[in-house]
């Protein structure tokens, strides 16, 4: 129920503050809920606050799983049409 969007940190702009960028749209947000924010991190932004961090490795795992599922589906389709 909570609209939140992953955004890249481009600058630490103050205490518990960071500037984020999504495809050129930039905004200053609060990072009071996250520890050790670094430039380059992808934070999940909800109502002007970072509520979590995207783990790039886990994201890769999910995408790899989806790619594998897609291959299996392609094989199943090929099998079905024979």
């Amino acid at each position, binding site marked *: *129920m*909570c*609209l939140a*969007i992953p*955004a890249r940190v481009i600058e630490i702009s103050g205490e518990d503050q960071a500037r984020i960028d*999504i*495809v*050129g*749209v*930039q*905004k200053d947000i609060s990072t009071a809920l996250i520890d050790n924010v670094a430039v380059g991190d992808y934070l999940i*932004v*909800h*109502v002007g606050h970072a509520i979590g961090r995207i783990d790039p490795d886990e994201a890769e795992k999910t995408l790899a799983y989806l790619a594998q599922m897609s291959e299996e589906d392609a094989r199943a389709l090929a099998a079905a049409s024979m």
Partner: protein
Amino acid sequence: MTKPGSYQRPIDFKHGKVDLTHGSGGRAMAQLIEDLFVANFDNDLLREQNDGACFSVPPGGRMVMATDSHVVSPLFFPGGDIGCLAVHGTVNDVAMAGGRPLYLAASFILEEGFPLAELKRIVESMARAAKEAGVPVVTGDTKVVEQGKGDGVFITTTGVGIVPDGVNVSAGNIRPGDKILVSGMLGDHGVAIMSLRENLSFDTTIESDTAALHGLTAAMLDAVPGIHALRDPTRGGLAAVMNEFAQQSGVGIVLQEDALPVRPQVEAACELLGLDPLYVANEGKLVAVCTAGDAERLLAVMRLHPQGRDAAIIGEVIDDPHGFVQMETSFGGRRMVDWLTGEQLPRIC
């Protein structure tokens, strides 16, 4: 006409403010009209300063008249201001009827206390826009309301033009099988305005797309005189126009999400705030409906024009007694594109 130098003092455009005498019909108002409006709008008809402007109309065709009130806030935004918006809006309304705009009238309702420096900036911008469009402001009116009773300035523009013989552009022409085209990127104006709204502020290089489209429509009608319908997706965005067309013509519409041209930054801003680009206002774009056979040629002509470089075919008209506007999502499913309820607001959920 009053001779130059016959006023005791020049208007203080730097620090002066609008006051009630500027609307009362006396000397102060006359000076404002002369030094600000006439000086900037700068055309013979206006210089006559009669109550109305008389002009002859070229023979043939039908006349078209359109009017628009402008209450935009903020008054100045990236890419434009209320002044040029007022010119473009009405010029475009005439153009959407298939007309060639001839003249504009401009009425100002000014709030007491409004800085003259800002008024000058607005009028200069209007004058520039009118000149670029080749559509002079030939008559007008000024009133002043007490402080607190206006939002700085309200502008109403009315335009007249000629629709040539043989051109008949109307929503009533739309038929199942027609194709729908849009002239360029959607959502720029609305996002530019939102970025300045207090409590929503975000930084973006997006600018309003406000522009006069009569050059584009003339080129389009030249190449495809049988265009069925034209409309500009201002308030309510593309979704409003689609629903208007569907309802007025008793047809259904199916759009292709993948075909909609939207800038990545506009998409990102909409994601951030929970908005849908389909409902965001545009001030320099048009939607065209034509037969399937004409679509590719019309698209090519649009893309040759500076205001149509990013034009695209975005959907088609179908038979549908319910008049629904639907969209094939890039995901592969279908959804409706309904009328907007009031103003689109950001959401947290």
